[in-house]
């Protein structure tokens, strides 16, 4: 941004409110401390010094859903646990995000066929934002999932459509632009082929 350089006094930053809020939110995603099975070990590894989730501002694992923004469902969700997962999700304040970490939470994983007690995917219980497959996923994969959550937060729009609000009337919200992950293979604008 060379065109801005040297135009302002020290310690002055120009941004939009939306960007500022999203930046603040995305750099302090506090996950909730809870692991349900083996995947939790990888989640702990991601939080420890070698991978260090704290670089992304997401290292403050909260022991209560009231202070958490992100639920990393790491491990096998059993039917017995499902109601607890749901309750914890409901106790989190908005905006809240869910990462389904591991094959078990994505779709039942190794317990898909014979696991009489396993929920076949945590998305049957709570809405999931990012799926991180693997059994267990490497910490890098979890970091990738976290960055996709950050993309989602970055895409939040707080403004209204111009001219839609008035006295006693709430404005029409601008829809969030959902980012397309660059690994998804989905092309936003398909190339036109000329035959």
């Amino acid at each position, binding site marked *: 941004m060379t065109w801005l350089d040297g135009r302002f006094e020290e310690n002055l930053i120009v941004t939009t409110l939306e960007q500022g809020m999203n930046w603040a939110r995305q750099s302090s995603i506090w996950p909730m401390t809870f692991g349900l099975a083996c995947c939790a070990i990888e989640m702990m590894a991601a939080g420890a010094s070698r991978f260090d989730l704290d670089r992304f501002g997401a290292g403050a694992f909260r022991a209560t859903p009231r202070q958490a923004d992100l639920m990393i469902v790491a491990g096998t969700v059993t*039917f*017995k646990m*499902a*109601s607890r997962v749901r309750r914890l999700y409901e106790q989190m304040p908005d905006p809240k995000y869910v990462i389904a970490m591991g094959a078990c939470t994505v779709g039942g994983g190794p317990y898909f066929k014979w696991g*009489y*007690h396993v*929920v*076949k995917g945590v998305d*049957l*219980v709570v809405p999931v934002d990012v799926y991180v497959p693997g059994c267990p996923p490497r910490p890098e994969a979890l970091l990738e999932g976290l960055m996709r959550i950050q993309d989602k937060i970055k895409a939040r729009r707080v403004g209204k459509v111009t001219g839609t609000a008035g006295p006693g009337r709430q404005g029409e919200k601008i829809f969030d632009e959902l980012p397309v992950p660059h690994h998804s293979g989905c092309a936003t604008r398909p190339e036109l082929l000329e035959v």
Partner: protein
Amino acid sequence: MTPAEIHQHLIARFGDRITGVKLDVLDPWVEVAPVALLEVAGHLRHDPALAFDLLTNLTGVDYCEPDPKKAAKFGHEPHLEVVYHLFSFPHRHHVVLKVKLPRWHDDQPGQLPRLDSVSGIWAIADWHEREAYDLLGIDFTGHPNLRRILCAEDWVGHPLRKDYEFPLEYHGIRGR
């Protein structure tokens, strides 16, 4: 004592209530009639020559082949077994007790087979018996607190029975 000596000792005392033995395996086992279990277990625990003061494991096994195609080759009558692995600290010897039970009490499906609880003899049997009850459906009579230990309280059925039907739905969450 060697397992063979333990078997002889038990035969001398309980006679035909000791219904079987197998010595040429890694864990030699003695089979006991269900009615005599409490007495035999109490004797094994308290007799100074045996002094089995540690129940290392208590588990249940379901011998059953629900697939009719494989049933011919299965080679066992359908039944349940409860297996007790015992160890004695003073004498450093092991033995395995087995008890055979019918799959259903009086052959009425839904009626759990009954067996005396040994939780009064080895306190650790308390949770092990709850587990065997939860997963295999064995009603341990005389158990102080026979509730499910792993599955939810309102779970239907005993999941490790070979003919168990998986739930299609549990509290509104689909099962498959």
